[in-house]
């Protein structure tokens, strides 16, 4: 999809110059490294996150779940989908 505007032409010279292509390739290499660092950092937070999830599931069953603005609904236990063993993946 596109950010910004769909009105009018978004790129008047879609073919990159050789300089632009080289710059983009370098930046994309850095981006892969950045992504891998993030994945590792997020994996390292797993135990902490599991506790946050447990706290959240407790709160929505006691204090309530924000379904719209300030509107909250207490979620009954039977509406909590049982965990099926999958890991809690957060980066895709």
């Amino acid at each position, binding site marked *: *999809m596109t*950010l*910004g505007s769909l009105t009018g032409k978004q790129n008047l*010279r879609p073919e*990159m110059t050789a300089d*632009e292509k080289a710059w983009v390739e370098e930046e994309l290499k850095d981006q892969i490294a950045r992504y891998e660092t993030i994945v590792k950092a997020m994996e390292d937070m797993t135990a902490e996150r599991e506790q946050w999830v447990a706290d959240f599931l407790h709160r*929505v069953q006691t204090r309530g779940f*924000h379904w719209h603005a300030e509107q909250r609904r207490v*979620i009954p236990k039977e509406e909590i989908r049982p965990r099926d063993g999958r890991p809690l993946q957060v980066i*895709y």
Partner: protein
Amino acid sequence: MARPHIEPFVDRDVGFKKMTMAGMPNGMQYKTLSMDTDNGAVTMTVQYDAGFKQPPGFCYNEMEIFVQEGSLKYGDQVCVKGHYLFLPAGKAMPAMSSDEGALCLVFYNNGAPSFEESDANHDACDEKNFASVNSYDGLDWTGNALFPATAPGCLLKMLHYDEKTHGMTFLYCMVPGFWQDNISYHDCAEEAYHIWGDSWMMQFGTLPTGGYFWRPAYINHGCFASERGILAIGRTDGDLHNHFHHDPYSSPQENAERAAARLARQKPAMYKWILTQDHNHVPHDFENPHDHVDPMEADTAQVIQPDGSHWP
């Protein structure tokens, strides 16, 4: 066109790089926050050095600039913090300079950075969406008109809104002590940068000043909290609907299916119409007969799988 899921990333953790690409002006340092893997569209923190000068000229693709600190002279206008510029592709910028330097966010929406010296618009430029506003001075905070809406204490200032896609660029803030106990996902990609403050999400932890994310569609985020409050700039590439739920383990595929099930419930006639009558092409829009964006042909962004393939 797609960018990988970059979340969370804090630009304060990395140093600036000098922009040395041929054609680009001197005195520009940058940190890349995320980049489209196909066309080089990029979001960057940019430091224009004190003494920066750029002659009149244009960028071949659409740009947005937000001034965070310092000042940037745009022709005769001095753009101070909070100033937002939307520059359509090929829109001629006057001479630009900065005496004291300026820290900005710069978005190149549809391609890599480019600069062509010129005192006139590109022949094919359509400048009607050009915008220049000091968002801190000239715009009011508004409540969130979405349904369902975020919890009270989250306010918006709209900077740019695309009438066709409903993609938008906006400032948002959260009051100190903000909290929202739900998990959200959207049908569009979402991008945000923390100008000041902190926010917390159950998946990613606390994001401080300088914190950034690019999140493809259908990825769970939330519940939410902010201890000190935040001021941030956000963007989407399409209509932002809050699909709230309370299942921390749902996958993007399950979330997309749930969104489609909602569409079938809420707009059954349209859903049935799309699925039947062999509509394997983009429906004709009599108001916009020349639109050529075909979701079936274009890569509709979103998740890049570990094997490099894109989903959906």
